[in-house]
């Protein structure tokens, strides 16, 4: 089976056939073993040893190894073909809902509908447990809709606004 794994702006084509792993066409010796706890793995790759922590964060995997956290989006060939038929790679285009990571009080909404925002630009200031937290844009885009106003209390995961 063929997969496409995306890390930042790098893409790897990974094929798994029986007991063989090919990365961009090259065979890789990899021995991956679960290590006694869910999400914890031991990998031997050409003799190099890694302990990895893998968490499925819905759509992408957060992989922690040797103190580094790396986000990997994995798509298989079939869903790649389907999404290509629509509008090119599935990520990071399309609508992006911005949600409250913690329950709190909206102190200020820093953007308005129609604003163009850059990656990492603050969008909303949320007060939680006496601390002010900036909710920032995960990527550049246009503010399609603002769902909250200053003074409003929001639950965890409440929709704050939609980037398009």
């Amino acid at each position, binding site marked *: 089976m063929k*997969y496409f794994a995306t890390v930042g702006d790098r893409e790897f084509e990974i094929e798994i056939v029986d007991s063989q792993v090919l990365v961009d066409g090259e065979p890789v010796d990899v021995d991956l073993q679960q290590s006694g706890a*869910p999400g914890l793995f031991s990998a031997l790759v050409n003799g190099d040893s890694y302990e990895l922590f893998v968490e499925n964060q819905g759509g992408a995997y957060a992989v922690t190894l040797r103190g580094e956290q790396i986000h*990997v989006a994995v798509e298989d060939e079939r869903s790649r073909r389907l999404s290509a038929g629509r509008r090119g790679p599935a990520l990071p285009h399309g609508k992006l809902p911005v949600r409250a990571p913690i329950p709190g009080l909206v102190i200020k909404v820093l953007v308005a509908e129609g604003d163009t925002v850059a990656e990492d630009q603050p969008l909303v200031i949320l007060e939680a447990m006496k601390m002010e937290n900036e909710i920032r844009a995960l990527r550049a885009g246009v503010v399609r809709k603002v769902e909250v106003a200053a003074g409003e209390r929001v639950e965890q995961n409440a929709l704050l606004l939609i980037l398009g």
Partner: protein
Amino acid sequence: MFKKVLVANRGEIAVRVLRACEERGISTVAVFSDPDRIALHVRYAGEAYHIGPAPSQESYLRIDKIIDVARKAEVDAIHPGYGFLAENAEFAAACRDAGITFIGPSPEAIEKMGDKLTARRTVAERGVPLVPGTEKGLSDSELKAAALQIGFPLMIKATAGGGGKGMRIVHEPEEFSRALGAARREAMGAFGNDEVYLEKFIPNARHIEIQILADSHGHTIHLGERECSIQRRHQKLIEESPSVVVDEALREEMGRVAIAAAEAVNYVNAGTVEFLFDSKENKYYFLEMNTRLQVEHPVTEWVTGVDIVKEQISIAAGRRLRYRQEDIVPKGWAMECRITAEDPFNNFMPNSGTVTYLKEPTGPGVRVESALYQGYEVSLFYDPMIAKLIVWGETRAEAILRMRRALNEYRIGGIKTSIPFHQEIMDSTEFIWGTFDTGFISRRQLVKAKHISPEHERIAAVVATLVAHEEGRRAVHIGEREGVQRSLWKQIGRARAMGGRC
């Protein structure tokens, strides 16, 4: 000695105090709020009683409920830990009224040191150097005259203030009037009180504090300094003892000054005298005195060999200090990282969730103070600090290398923590050289920018794909689920890996 002690706290510090009691053969009582029913401090204690719902105001800050439990469980003494009621004079007084020993200083000492301006005045009489500044309650014109005397840069601070609100740094005399007006308005808005005072601003200052111990027989000693300059938004993140900027002579001098500050309020208990340290001028100024155990006490414990919590208990029981000043001979270097449930990749956003996997570092020179366990639920009701990692090394270099090693070993699954942030600090040359000050963190780039090796990206991609592949197969053949435990990819590349290089 006490027979039974109640610990009026939660989290790692409650466990720390319970351990000290157990090692002294003292029975223990814990109190807990709704979400803390299976917390480690509850399971660790000999007895445990529920005191209310999650919000601290309705549980861990409820003096009446805690005194009530203490009475019913017939304890001799209460240890407040740090935070919550630890510096609450009313609580100390309530213990006294109930005939229960408060393991801490007198309500009077707490009060005197609790009010910053009173504290300044009190210690100044003993010759403790203060940051040049004014009293509170001055008029605008009096403040202006004082500002010229103090010199610039200076700080305008709200008397009722805290957390940086109503605070202004003024660099030039011309800016003063406008900044004063703004600070007064902000203070009025935030605290309903527009009283302000002035303080000289010391650029590139370091935070150095002296640990003291004072018994009820008039003996006070110090246990040397701690360096706590690595802070973010006035929250300490990394502490160490000794400090690279304090030599033998300065330690002796600052120690003497700290003892004088404590004696100014007839202090009894463990306490910490905090100083602002101007490393350019090699001058130190009294900041405040914390009349309680500090979060960072373990670094002092490790270099001096003194168990500060046991000593607190001993002192409260009326015993004499077991040490004279000359017995305190620090050895090696200790360092602490505060592990918080905050996402360093996302502006230190506090996060909640369940700890799905936990493996704490251990081995030589490593100590963990933690309230975590597999299944622990991080609650946004309480402080995001969930654990402390402390290491000791013969030298500062060894301590840093050991801290890196221990951080690499630390596995906390299910929640985001500040561990990657600490790893970055341990790798930074500024930290390694020891040339930092309290502005260190705010000047640094976002952790996001961290360089990830291309080889690691490739490995992460392969592993994530293999996991996705297996998850896909499991979704199809649900019946196989039980059997796939730990040898998921035993065949994949196994023969090759073995045959390959050896």
